[in-house]
């Protein structure tokens, strides 16, 4: 590993989150935005399971991050940042649903019965916000592109990225498993990501709304 990697506790993405939180609390909004970019999909997916209205999902996700930003100084790192964020998102969504139930006409949302507030509620054959035909197609295309890129990777790169992304192993554990230096692991994972990214990025550009 190069000099860039200073071992302060076990190097994990969670530690990276905590460091980003520290920077955000110190006033670095960009650091917080990196956390938003990282977790936005998971938060929207979570809220999308509770709320079916497309605009409301995004509004609640925005509200979740705003509330997290305001309360960021209270995050002490006892739990993972995503766990903390997850709880804020769930409670923000529940509060929005309660408000929605009180004044359904004010939101222009129809068909929101009390049963809909159940996090596990799912009407049969009904698409949620995240499951419009366009988004389903886009998601399928991205998944196919990622899988095709994975298949096309050299074995050592594929193995490294699988151990990292799917198995969740640290660089040290991957180095031990693959019997190579940590710097090699880092390089293999980066090259694998770049190869997959080269296939995915043009798709993101061409999808409606320009994802990035």
């Amino acid at each position, binding site marked *: 590993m190069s*000099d860039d*990697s*200073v*071992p302060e506790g076990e190097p994990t993405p969670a530690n*990276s989150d905590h*460091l980003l939180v520290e920077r955000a*609390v110190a006033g670095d*909004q*960009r*650091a917080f*935005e*990196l956390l*938003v*970019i*990282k977790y*936005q*999909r*998971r938060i*929207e*997916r979570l809220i999308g399971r509770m709320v079916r209205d497309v605009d409301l999902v*995004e*509004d609640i996700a*925005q509200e*979740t991050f*705003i*509330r997290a930003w*305001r309360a*960021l*100084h*209270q995050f*002490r790192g006892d739990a993972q940042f995503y766990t*903390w964020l997850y709880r*804020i998102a769930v*409670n*923000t969504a529940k*509060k*929005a649903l309660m*408000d*929605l139930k*009180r*004044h359904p006409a*004010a939101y222009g949302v129809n068909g929101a019965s009390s049963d809909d507030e159940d996090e596990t509620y799912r009407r049969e054959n009904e698409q949620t916000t*995240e499951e419009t035909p366009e988004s389903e197609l*886009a998601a399928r295309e991205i*998944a196919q592109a990622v899988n095709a890129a*994975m298949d096309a990777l050299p074995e050592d790169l594929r193995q490294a990225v699988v151990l*990292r*992304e799917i198995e969740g192993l640290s660089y040290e554990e991957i180095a031990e498993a693959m019997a190579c230096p940590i710097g090699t692991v880092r390089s293999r994972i*980066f090259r694998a*990501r*770049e190869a*997959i*990214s080269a296939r*995915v*990025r043009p798709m993101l550009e061409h*999808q409606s*709304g*320009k*994802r*990035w």
Partner: protein
Amino acid sequence: MASGGKGGGFSRQAGEQMNTEEQLKLREQVSALADGQLHGVAFAATVEQLGGDEDGRASWHVYHLIGDVLRSSELGTCQHDRDFVARLSARLQAEPGVPRGLDGLHESPELIANSDRNTLGIAKIDRKSRAAANDGSYRWKMLAGLATVVAAAAIGWSGLGDRSGEALLARQSAPEPVKVALGAGPTGGAESVSVGAVLIRDPHLDGLLAAHRQFGGSSAFQNPSGFLRNATFDTGASRGPRAPGQ
């Protein structure tokens, strides 16, 4: 540093520019950052660079997207990632910043989610429509509290008043010196005599009351009836001899 442009996202031109050695180095740092492998100076420098480099942020986004999709294909469905972050960024700039100096405070995520400073469009509408319900009015709460105190006082006062009435009634029904008419005989003239607390009255009246006792007990006016009964029995010593059968 070459950049894809702040608002332009990933493009072919930017793709050509970012294939520079410097861009590759930054992206490698971003990859390591995504895996939590950077600390200290390297971490700070990379985050600093990412803040102003759209291509670096795009790499950060795509690397995490790849990981999310590998773990769950459902996580590839969000469609407005960049717009979402841009909108949030604008809102964050309007915020006063992360509060500081409240280190002792540690609210739960539930409290954070339910705090009053709600900026959801929903909540704004909701608050407006609920204004007439007096929920947020301090004066209304004061009035409600005052009404409660007044009601409690009224109930207490009425209870006390009942007890005062009972005491008054008890005083009124206490034995007093009674003036009764003493007759010399069934047809004799009446004579009024006051004899302190001792009840002296016409024996004929006692006889009459004794003969009609069954009516006294069934009266709807219990107190006078009771008095009459008591008077009947309490004055036995002063009664004259009764005729058999009376």
